[in-house]
């Protein structure tokens, strides 16, 4: 028996050696290579998702694996059977396979983001907003949810709390790479953790790791921001989604727009995933805004959504989003008008152990409205890229048509369009004669929206031709701002502006307000938004009203006894009729002082005294340090777009850490270290969102 066994072994090894000496050796090498590759697989591997809960009584849970963002479910993984928990979905195949639930003509896609709740309170011109994102795992395996979402670009995000059941864990602000490392390690070891990073001033990424099947994790974000005030109307805006961005060829630091389930195809550092036409995720939103204006509210309007309202007193207003209009696919915009005569330049202050902080809303002097303007050289620059297709390009054309009709004899104009290429009406600006305006109308009618968004070329075309010094040159950009190279565009404007002024018009339902606002600020002009339900003629008419009177230019402020240390914006824009400017700063002196604003109206100097501001002010506001710090970060970030000075990064980071704020170089992280979930990593599930209302999927989203 023993001998036979020995012989048997001998025979086995002889056969094995024979096999290995030929093709067998190659097969072994390939097998080993595959095994080693499995050990060191790239973190960017594409990953099939686990089954939605309810597809079978059992689900698959992965074996712990080392520090990977996306866990491949290859043949080298150890699979362990686990029973699915939590609420059962109707029968459905795994998302990503294309076989999804039918919902009256729509496909319902299980997504980990269930609901967003927004609670805002506004006092004076500062809003405080709390956003709750409710993540729930609808699958049978553990997941990491990753969600790219927007916030206002001037939001000072200073609070981050992760809620697990009844337990609430406050996130810690840290240097970004340190926070990312901490999060990745917690994720790898199986702890529930969340991370908030900033991709752009108005685009953030929320990651929540180790959400077990059926379990819910909420994340609360709080921020402060200043409201816009134009022509007697305050505007509160909450962006509900980040629109799909075009990234010029050769760039990799943009935000890719890819189809649901196609992680990594854009080649960009960060990505947003979009649902295909007729797909729905079930994610909805609720929103409530409480306004305490301090003075009677005369009127309010919300053209973007269906809302209900209550007014507890003449100074107060509560507006709630109608549950029937809860699809988060466009910006929420609430405008309200307060009693006009009572609005004056107002100073809000706050003092704490860090010193004094103030915010000044500086109104233009009334005298300006009685003066007439100089002749204009008006340059309209239309974004004709694919994302503008449909209603947006119609609105843009209507606005330009209105503008052409409002030109006066003596003015001149130019039309420029850009998409993948750039074109213009004439080699130089045309006189505003009826014949030339007719030509312009024909040119305008022939424009169509398709192709990429090479906005830098549009900027160059608009700012590079010779300027007629006898006319004021205003350059009007009409765009949705769906590009990923914002810094490059702002840098070009900074470099080429000269004596031009830029007015940017945001066209669409969910535009890139960061870019559009910063273009106007860099261009020392102003901004207006034209939604699908707004009157293009009225918006353009309002713009002409502003530029029909001379602006107070070259502003300089004498702060007198206020002893201002740092105030932002560092370069003040021109002060146009109906458009106040908010200046935020630190002070060390007496807030009960007289501030003098010096500027020029045409060639004539003008001084405006604003007496005893402190006594008229809305008093103390503890949000001011955060608002000031956010403005400083924005100012430094703008400088960073013009010159890549590493010292600026350090300054931004230090301000953000000192004031506990989000920035490009800081991040919030929260870890629940009390319990380790089973396994060490889940499958990464990017939260896909619909394309914005009025935007066409096929012209904006990358599908491979």
């Amino acid at each position, binding site marked *: 028996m023993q001998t036979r066994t020995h012989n048997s072994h001998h025979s086995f090894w002889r056969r094995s050696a024979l096999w290995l000496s030929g093709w067998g050796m190659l097969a072994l090498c390939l097998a080993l290579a595959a095994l080693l590759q499995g050990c060191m697989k790239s973190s960017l591997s594409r990953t099939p998702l686990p089954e939605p809960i309810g597809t079978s009584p059992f689900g698959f849970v992965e074996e712990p694996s*080392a520090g990977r963002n996306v866990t491949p479910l290859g043949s080298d993984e150890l699979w362990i059977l686990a029973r699915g928990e939590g609420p059962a979905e109707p029968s459905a195949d795994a998302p990503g396979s294309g076989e999804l639930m039918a919902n009256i003509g729509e496909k319902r896609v299980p997504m980990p983001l269930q609901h967003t709740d927004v609670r805002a309170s506004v006092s004076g011109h500062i809003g405080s907003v709390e956003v709750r994102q409710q993540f729930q795992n609808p699958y049978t395996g553990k997941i990491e949810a990753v969600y790219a979402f927007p916030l206002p670009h001037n939001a000072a995000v200073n609070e981050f709390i992760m809620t697990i059941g009844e337990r609430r864990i406050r996130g810690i602000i840290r240097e970004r790479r340190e926070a990312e490392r901490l999060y990745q390690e917690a994720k790898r070891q199986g702890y529930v953790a969340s991370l908030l990073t900033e991709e752009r001033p108005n685009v953030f990424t929320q990651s929540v790791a180790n959400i077990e099947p059926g379990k819910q994790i909420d994340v609360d974000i709080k921020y402060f921001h200043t409201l816009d005030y134009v022509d007697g109307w305050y505007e509160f805006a909450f962006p509900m989604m980040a629109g799909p961005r075009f990234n010029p060829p050769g760039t990799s630091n943009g935000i890719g727009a890819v189809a649901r389930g196609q992680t990594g195809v854009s080649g960009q550092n960060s990505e947003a995933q979009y649902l295909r036409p007729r797909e729905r995720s079930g994610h909805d939103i609720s929103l409530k805004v409480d306004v305490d204006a301090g003075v009677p509210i005369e009127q309010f309007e919300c053209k973007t959504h269906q809302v209900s309202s209550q007014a507890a007193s003449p100074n107060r207003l509560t507006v709630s989003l109608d549950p029937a209009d809860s699809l988060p696919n466009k910006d929420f915009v609430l405008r309200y008008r307060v009693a006009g005569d009572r609005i004056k330049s107002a100073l809000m202050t706050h003092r704490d152990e860090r010193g004094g902080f103030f915010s000044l809303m500086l109104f233009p002097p009334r005298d300006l409205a009685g003066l007439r303007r100089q002749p204009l050289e008006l340059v309209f620059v239309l974004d004709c890229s694919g994302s503008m297709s449909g209603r947006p390009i119609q609105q843009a054309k209507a606005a330009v048509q209105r503008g052409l009709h409002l030109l006066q004899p003596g003015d001149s104009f130019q039309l420029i369009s850009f998409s993948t290429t750039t074109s213009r009406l004439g080699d130089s600006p045309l006189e505003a004669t009826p014949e030339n305006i007719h030509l312009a109308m024909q040119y305008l009618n022939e424009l169509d929206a398709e192709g990429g968004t090479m906005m830098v070329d549009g900027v160059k075309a608009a700012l590079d031709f010779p300027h007629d010094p006898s006319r004021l040159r205003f350059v009007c950009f009409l765009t949705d701002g769906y590009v990923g190279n914002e810094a490059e565009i702002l840098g070009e404007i900074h470099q080429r502006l000269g004596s031009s002024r830029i007015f940017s018009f945001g066209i669409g339902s969910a535009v890139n307000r960061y870019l559009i606002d910063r273009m106007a600020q860099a261009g020392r002009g102003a901004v207006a938004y034209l939604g699908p339900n707004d009157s293009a003629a009225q918006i353009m008419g309002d713009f002409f009203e502003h530029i029909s009177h001379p602006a107070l230019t070259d502003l300089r402020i004498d702060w007198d006894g206020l002893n201002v240390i740092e105030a932002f914006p560092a370069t003040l824009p021109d002060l146009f009729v109906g458009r106040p400017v908010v200046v935020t700063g630190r002070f060390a002196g007496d807030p009960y002082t007289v501030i003098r604003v010096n500027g020029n109206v045409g060639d004539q100097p003008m001084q405006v005294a604003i007496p005893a501001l402190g006594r008229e002010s809305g008093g103390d506001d503890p949000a001011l340090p955060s608002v000031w710090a956010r403005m400083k970060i924005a100012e430094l970030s703008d400088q960073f777009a013009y010159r890549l000075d590493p010292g600026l990064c350090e300054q931004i980071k230090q301000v953000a850490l000192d004031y506990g704020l989000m920035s490009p170089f800081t991040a919030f992280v*929260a870890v629940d270290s009390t319990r*380790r979930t089973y396994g060490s990593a889940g499958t990464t599930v990017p939260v896909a969102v619909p394309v914005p209302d009025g935007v066409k999927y096929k012209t904006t989203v990358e599908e491979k």
Partner: protein
Amino acid sequence: MRAALQSLPRGAGLVRLVALVLSVFGLAAGLRAQQPALEEGRSRFCAIDIYVDAGATPLAAYQLEFTATNGMAKIAGIEGGAHAAFHEPPFYDPKAMQHERVILAAFSTAAADKLPVGKVRVATVHLQITGDSPPQFQIKLQTAGDANGNKIPAQASFEERKQQ
């Protein structure tokens, strides 16, 4: 081929082959096992419960400083306490946090009969501990107050929570 096989010394060929197969599989398995093990060894997460004991006086407010003295601990989250009055996670000073020193403060406006008495967990600090040596912690109560805003004598302490 057959000739080549026959030319192999019987025992030596077998041993080499077994060694090759075992070493290659061992290497692969080792790589898989080693990486997590090394990283696990470098850091672990733990929760430190923070207590304040004001004796029989209802506790309405506190401020304390919690420090990791050997620099091997990073704060990864701050959780509220056990009692409803201190359920919300306390605020921290971001400047102190840059030195892994956390100054926590919280207050409750509830009536005295709704406030905790005796030793109560007011917060939990979530930490990442790096390295093999156990970290050293210090806690210092800076102030504590009652429902009337008066300063009260109290003691602060901490304890590492056993992981579930």
